[in-house]
């Protein structure tokens, strides 16, 4: 199943040759590939759902809603917008520069590498690819070995729909990925964790390759006591249960006023029962943990917590099932606050003031998203000004991913660069500036040539003495 390591450089070279040949330049060509990608997702959706059910126990609804549907929609919309995005721009400049015809070409970066993770493998592989195709690049897809059925499926269906001169799938694990990282790419798009991101960034540094890193972290939820706790509980629990909590933007832990903790716990229990009347263990509406390693990791974290388990999730290691587990009275230093949970465990950290909640968040690495439930405008304003995060979402969880117009990105430890629709297109596009100096400009340019006269210096020194408006510090 793994791609032969020795063939990997040849794959890259072939894609580079395609790029240089100009095959991917015409807009109609790119649009056709995008429509083909949409067709692939639409026609092969049963196979895709089956593969993800096998690898991750993912409910069909979740796959169709969060993964397949968005790939189709965004591929088609990107094709529709492409002529607009790819249009050469003519920036407005000062009069004296107008005759130079300042121009911004949208140039494809070239041959790119997209490395995707196991948790939302369909959308996180193809969303970046949509931008790469739209931009006119050629690409290698390296899906995760932790979803072997899915990755193998890609090897079969991708060449049926997309031109193999433009896009190839490379499968494997560490040796194959290392080989890919030895080669030069014009951009590397990586979605995953901070540890591997450092390895990729270090490899990219040798070739001066630009990167997009879509990482994770612990996305906190702050609950304003004045907000409807019942509704907050429902929306938070929903975010946590999607893909059994294995998502970069899962609400990781909750900060709530101490005197509201019991109310929150009751509400969470109520909604849990509504979501899973017979419990989540055997529910087709709840996913599995991706691997034995991760299952063990999660149960081990739970065993070490000093908090109070109020909703005890049942575990079945053989089937890698772990029911949502809610833990209250979690304090700083607890096992559940050590690393990104990436699982169906919800720690509740009681605080005694809003300021304490902000300080708690700011003492930690910048998260991918900050969630807050509040209707108070000054509370919201304070959170926008006093915290840093990739995104900031009020009064819901997870739903921001549906917004095509928002750049999806991290900051600090949660990564850099962004994606979704035009932002992905921009990621794989280089703005190539250009001017075309007319012959007729020569008389005006005369003063710049040596030997430099007094007059020339005087004329140009005028710019230095532009009037500066008054101000005081």
């Amino acid at each position, binding site marked *: 199943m793994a791609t032969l390591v020795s063939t990997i450089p040849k794959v890259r070279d072939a894609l580079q040759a395609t790029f240089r040949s100009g095959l991917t330049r015409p807009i109609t060509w790119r649009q056709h590939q995008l429509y083909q990608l949409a067709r692939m997702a639409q026609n092969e959706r049963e196979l895709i759902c089956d593969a993800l059910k096998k690898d991750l126990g993912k409910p069909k*609804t979740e796959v169709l809603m969060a993964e397949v549907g968005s790939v189709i929609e965004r591929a088609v919309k990107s094709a529709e917008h492409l002529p607009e995005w790819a249009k050469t721009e003519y920036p407005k400049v000062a009069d004296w520069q107008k005759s130079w015809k300042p121009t911004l070409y949208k140039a494809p970066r070239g041959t790119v590498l997209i490395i995707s993770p196991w948790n939302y493998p369909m959308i996180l592989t193809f969303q970046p690819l949509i931008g790469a195709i739209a931009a006119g690049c050629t690409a290698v897809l390296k899906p995760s070995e932790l979803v072997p059925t899915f990755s193998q499926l890609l090897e079969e269906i991708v060449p049926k729909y997309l031109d193999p001169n433009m896009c190839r799938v490379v499968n494997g694990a560490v040796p194959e990925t290392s080989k890919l990282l030895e080669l030069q790419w014009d951009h590397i798009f990586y979605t995953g964790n901070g540890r591997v991101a450092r390895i990729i960034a270090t490899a990219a540094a040798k070739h001066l390759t630009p990167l997009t890193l879509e990482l994770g972290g612990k996305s906190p939820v702050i609950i304003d006591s004045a907000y409807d706790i019942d509704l907050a509980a429902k929306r938070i629990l929903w975010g946590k*249960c999607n893909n059994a909590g294995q998502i970069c933007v899962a609400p990781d832990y909750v900060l709530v006023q101490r005197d509201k903790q019991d109310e929150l716990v009751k509400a969470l229990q109520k909604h849990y029962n509504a979501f899973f009347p017979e419990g989540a263990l055997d529910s087709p509406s709840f996913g599995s943990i991706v691997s034995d390693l991760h299952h063990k990791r999660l149960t081990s974290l739970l065993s070490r917590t000093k908090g109070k388990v109020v909703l005890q999730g049942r575990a079945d290691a053989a089937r890698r099932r772990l029911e949502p587990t809610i833990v209250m009275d979690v304090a700083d230093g607890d096992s559940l606050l050590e690393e990104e949970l990436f699982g169906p465990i919800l720690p509740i950290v009681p605080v005694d003031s809003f300021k304490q909640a902000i300080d708690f968040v700011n003492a930690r690495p910048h998260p991918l998203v900050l969630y807050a439930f509040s209707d108070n405008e000054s509370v919201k304003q304070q959170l926008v000004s006093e915290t840093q995060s990739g995104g900031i979402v009020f009064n819901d969880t997870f739903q921001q991913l549906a917004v095509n117009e*928002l750049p999806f990105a991290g900051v600090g430890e949660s990564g850099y660069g962004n994606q979704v629709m035009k932002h992905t297109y921009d990621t794989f596009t280089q703005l190539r500036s250009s001017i075309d100096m007319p012959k007729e400009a020569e008389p005006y340019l005369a003063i710049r040539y040596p030997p430099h006269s007094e007059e020339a210096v005087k004329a140009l020194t005028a710019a230095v003495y532009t009037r500066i408006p008054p101000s005081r510090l």
Partner: protein
Amino acid sequence: MSSMKYTPKQHITEIHSRLSKTFREGRTLPLEYRRKQLLQVARLVQENVDAVMASLKADLGRHPFEATLPELGPMVSSALHAVQNLDEWNSPEKPQVEAWRSGWDTTIFKAPKGTVVNISPWNFPWVLTILPLIGAIAAGCTCLIKPSEHAQASAALMAKLIPQYLDPDAYAVCLGAVEETTHVLSLKWDHIFYTGSVSVGRIVAEAAAKQLTPVTLELGGQSPVFVDGDSTNIEIAAKRILWGKQQNAGQVCVAPNHVFVQEQHQSALVEGGPLDSSSEMARVVNARHYERNKSLLFRTKGKVVLGGQAGQDLRIEPAIVTGVTLDDPLMEEEIFGPILPIIPVANVDAAISHIQSGQKTNVWITFHVSMHVDQLCSKVVQRTQSGQLIINETFGQVAVYEMPFGGQGQSGYGSYLGKYSFDTFTHQRGYINVPADARTEGFMQGRYPPYSAPALEFFSQALKTKIPDA
């Protein structure tokens, strides 16, 4: 030249802590604060013109003209340009969204990345330090400046003036060489802006990789020029190319490195260039580079047809070398000096394939093309890659703020000038605010488990999108 006092490493760490603390406290967030600091940058230049010019003369032998046109003037205009656009650049964007989510107040905030560092080079020491700083200030970041130790007079003057004009808790200068720069790179920054060589660029990127720090690399390369003798005014082409080459004695990242021209037009191009012996050209920055340039002239297998005299005080006459081939010593790396190799080719296709095949020249900041015919232009646009593409000119493009200045491939990544400087130091923070009303909640009911068939049907709408037949 007196040796510069380097900033002790412990002190560098203290500066970093101070700048980080200032940022966290929110001091640089109010636009009024940033506006005042930007005006101070403009004043710093305007009130110290003579001193800045003297420092450039000491470091690089610069004529006042070459200090003003590329450095002094742009520093003042960029600062004022940032002041004028500060409100617009910082205002949150409200993108248009589909009707069903129009109640979510979708917003993109412009959030400062945090505490950043600008490591600048010796060749245009003032403008390449100050222009990124302007972007950082406008974005609301705090910033450390690390100017090059090879332009000592400029660095020393910066270290003196910046604390006098700007808030020392938010913007600081540290001086040093390899050891101090390595120490700077070991600290955690929210963005590293580096202008300089490819080899150090790799070191910067590797250090940044350990901390997952985003980087802008403004590097070098060998900017090729193609002169289409068939369709252009050779005299004007020669004049403009030579002008670009002799700026700062060719020590500019966007200097025309070498020229491809059709075989039959080679001599016309050479004759066209006016070389005035009384011109006050800048000197080569130091002895090491002076020897390097002299050695290139000695080793070249081409014919030195004009200039090339190595003089006193690290000056070398601009030299034109004809009949150069791609394997000549002059083509090994970026010349960064006053030598102009001319490579005769059959036609533009030959030039393009030379450029495409050369690993080093493949991607670079400017590809100057002296031609008028549109077809030829589009061939160049489509089949070559470079940071910028300049037609019928050299060097003039850096005056256009509305275009991003940045590299591609080996010439780096990221860009700046005008709004692009602001964007470099800004994180676009997405925001939504989902209403709590019953109508919204009712609309979203189907997303909660247990997943039902009707819910599946509803959310499968996107699956049924009609794909155009194309």
